[in-house]
């Protein structure tokens, strides 16, 4: 039985929205905090769309849809997270910004509140070091799109207590997710391999070896992957890919983790990916994956 009753999510981007859907769907009262009220409005709409699609596909009952929506709230006031049992941070990959956020949360949340970061590249121990409660801090890296993917990479920091990790682990199971314990190393397992893989796919486009649609077609057909790297990158977003690359390369110095110049050009041109309607492919809408 989970000790967690109320979940806070910080950030209403692609990952924060997906995590909020997972938590509300699993029966947890969930509050999403973001300073951008437009993003919060968008989250409410996209969550409703996603749940409605789930009902239409027979994956959710109508009454569960309504209950899930009732459990999901949004707020542009951090004070609304004060009574949460766990707060999951899903903001962009910047250590200083995360430190600032957690130190503010530490001042308002109850002492037993667990802090979790959805970081995919930055060390959990480093983030926890600026949180004021590094013994109650865990890494919970959900996978994109979080509302559909079951995996959560769970990482303890060097000072994370066994009890905190155990509570977070049980919470993850109660969310209906599949946790895997990873070391607190750059990129954990998934992004350590995925970032260079995706960068190499971008470099193939950049050097004219193949068009994005041919790369995706080849990888999907040869290996049976559900999604090709270019489609996945459009979902991740070029701005996020650049942040991931910068964080990863600063930590590992691996050349394949360096952000390809094409990503920078695409960001400058506004070709951010699905959310902008254009990335490596063009999109008619920016609906959430699965909605």
């Amino acid at each position, binding site marked *: 039985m989970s000790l967690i009753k109320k979940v806070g999510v910080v950030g209403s981007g692609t990952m924060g929205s997906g995590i909020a859907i997972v938590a509300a769907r699993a029966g947890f009262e969930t509050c999403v905090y973001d300073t951008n009220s437009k993003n919060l409005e968008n989250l409410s709409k996209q969550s409703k769309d996603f749940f409605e699609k789930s009902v239409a596909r027979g994956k959710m009952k109508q009454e569960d849809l309504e209950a899930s929506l009732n459990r999901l709230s949004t707020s542009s006031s951090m004070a609304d997270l004060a009574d949460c049992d766990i707060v999951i941070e899903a903001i962009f990959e910047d250590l200083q910004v995360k430190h600032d956020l957690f130190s503010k949360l530490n001042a308002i949340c109850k002492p037993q509140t667990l802090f979790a970061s959805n970081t995919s590249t930055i060390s959990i121990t480093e983030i926890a070091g600026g949180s004021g409660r590094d013994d109650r801090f865990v890494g919970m890296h959900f996978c994109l799109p979080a509302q559909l993917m079951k995996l959560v*990479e769970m990482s303890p920091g060097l000072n994370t207590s066994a009890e905190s990790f155990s509570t977070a682990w049980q919470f993850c199971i109660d969310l209906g997710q599949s946790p895997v314990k990873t070391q607190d190393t750059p990129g954990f397992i998934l992004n350590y391999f995925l970032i260079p893989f995706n960068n190499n796919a971008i470099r193939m486009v950049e050097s004219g070896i193949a068009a994005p649609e041919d790369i995706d077609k080849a990888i999907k057909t040869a290996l049976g992957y559900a999604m090709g790297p270019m489609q996945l990158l459009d979902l991740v977003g070029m701005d996020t890919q650049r942040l991931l690359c910068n964080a990863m390369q600063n930590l590992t110095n691996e050349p394949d983790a360096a952000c390809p110049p094409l990503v920078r050009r695409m960001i400058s041109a506004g070709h951010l990916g699905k959310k902008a309607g254009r990335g490596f492919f063009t999109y008619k809408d920016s609906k959430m994956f699965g909605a």
Partner: protein
Amino acid sequence: MLNVQIIDTGKSRSFPNLAEFNLSSDAKADILLIIGQEVHQAFKAVSNQNAYQLILLELGEECLGIHTGESLGNEGSHVLGFARYKMGDDPATKLIELVKQPKSKDQSLETAKSFFESLELVVAVCADTPGRIVDRLIRPYLNSVLRRLDDGLATAEDMDKTLKLGLGYPEGPLAMLQRSGLEHHAQVTESLYQALGNPGFFPARRALVAKKMKSN
């Protein structure tokens, strides 16, 4: 429907069993398909190359330029390369990597695509580069997975589980390598390392061990 003339030089990786495609060779053909291990000699022996609308050469790990020659980026004609993707001991997949050169004719590409698609194969077009699309992308990744296994990042099972669940892969990379033959990976990635010089292609220790064990 385009007529095809087939020159089968034996031991084709792409078409080990031509009968499965119901392909019959026609001497008065629009397309000349040369497959097998001796493609180069067979291609050079074709005296009337311009009589065909399209010539398709089956490639192994080599570039198309090995057969056609190159001319500082001006190479390309109605001769295209192709390879049906196959991972080690696994059966050939439905993927055809169709290799073009800078000046390849658009009409030839369209004809080649139509031909392979009529065989219910999936065509991905790429430039004439070592590793084409799939091997160029996955071999460094597979080497990296093998190296991190040696580093103790996680168990083989947890690494495979993470990549399967996190990315929706049907199979983890380590299980795939184990099943399809780690020694084949060593051979492919060694060849790519020689061709490209990128350290990511340098075979991982476990792959070299598997290759050595196989040759003993």
